């Protein structure tokens, strides 16, 4: 089977941003994403994940390199200053390239 190279964008941020981000993904015609609850520690302190106001989420999505980079830049500009936000891009190899 043939593997194709695509870019995965991983976002760790505050759960409150979920709806906004999903709206942005829709607008950018991203075709799929996965969101999970996250716990951990970072510059904004420890996130226990056991309290409404203190939830973190981790989002993963796969797109072509240009879309993923543009998306990450938009998110950084919009939310980077005031929200807990970490993003990274990685190269991944996928089957069924037409899905992404």
């Amino acid at each position, binding site marked *: 089977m043939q593997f194709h190279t695509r870019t995965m964008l991983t976002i760790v941020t505050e759960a409150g941003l979920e709806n906004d981000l999903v709206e942005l993904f829709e607008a950018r015609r991203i075709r799929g994403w996965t969101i999970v609850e996250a716990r951990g520690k970072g510059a904004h302190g420890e996130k226990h994940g056991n309290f409404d*106001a203190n939830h973190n989420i981790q989002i993963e999505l796969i797109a072509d390199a240009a879309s993923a980079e543009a998306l990450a830049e938009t998110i950084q500009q919009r*939310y980077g200053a*005031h929200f807990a936000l970490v993003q990274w891009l990685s190269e991944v190899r996928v089957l069924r390239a037409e899905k992404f």
Partner: protein
Amino acid sequence: MQIDPVVLFFLLGLAAGWAKSDLKLPSALYDTLSVFLLLAIGIKGGLELAKQPVLQILPQALLVLLMGFLIPLLIYPLLRWRLPQVDAASIAAHYGSVSVVTYAVGVAYLTRQGVSFESQTTLFLVLLEMPALIVGVVLARLGAARAAGEGDGTAVAGHGWGKLLHEVLLGKSMVLLLGGLAIGALAGPDGIKPLDRLYLDLFKPVLTLFLLEMGLVVAGKLGILRKQGFFLVGIGVGLPLALSWVGIGFGVLMGLSPGGVTMLGVLAASASYIAAPAAMRMAVPQANPALSLGAALGITFPFNLLVGIPLYHQFATAVTGG
């Protein structure tokens, strides 16, 4: 003074969290319990409310709304003395809005003391949640707009009004409280019979589990006290004490019973730590959430539980002479 047993559960959670016990309630349980509490409070209020003529409650409801708008405007200038505009606005919103659990513990306290109070206090709880959030956002945005006029014009951030109203009006707590009120009012005492074991009898036992979790959460916030120090403690204790008198004043003005005046004092003194942090985070992201949540949840919530509620009851009794 005897401590109400429900408060002991809070202290247990606080102590366990402090001692770094591995005790932790699953977050799904916390969510479930909060759904239950909100529905139960709504239903209880709805049952009583159905007995009251609407026209008699309307002027009281308007006064309560007025109080909701007034409280953040009163405390904002005080907070501005030491804090940046966005933080002062955010804290004003937290203290203007209300805490459902503090209200629930107030209900438990008065019930245990055998003191009756007006059923429309549940409606007051619902009405008080939102006005302060609106005032808080306006105060923060006014400042941000002014700063933007001088600066590069990018200082205004956060959600627009439509989205914000949608978030607050259709937030979990509003939907469940109002929904519970409607169900209680429609069903009436007979209709609710098959459900009253769960929603009425189990209210206090479930509240204890919720308070155990709150103790753990508050213990996690105590670190902020070390960082922010006396100023935050001053806010967290001073504001509820002062604001309880605003509530008591409005209660007397409305001609409520001593129990009702106490409950309005409790509502005015309580600070929101669920609805307000979520709304302010989205509407005023520049504000430091650790500051407002630290004061509301870390100091004011335990203060009201342990000292405030019995104290406001004494205030109210003294003022009303009852």
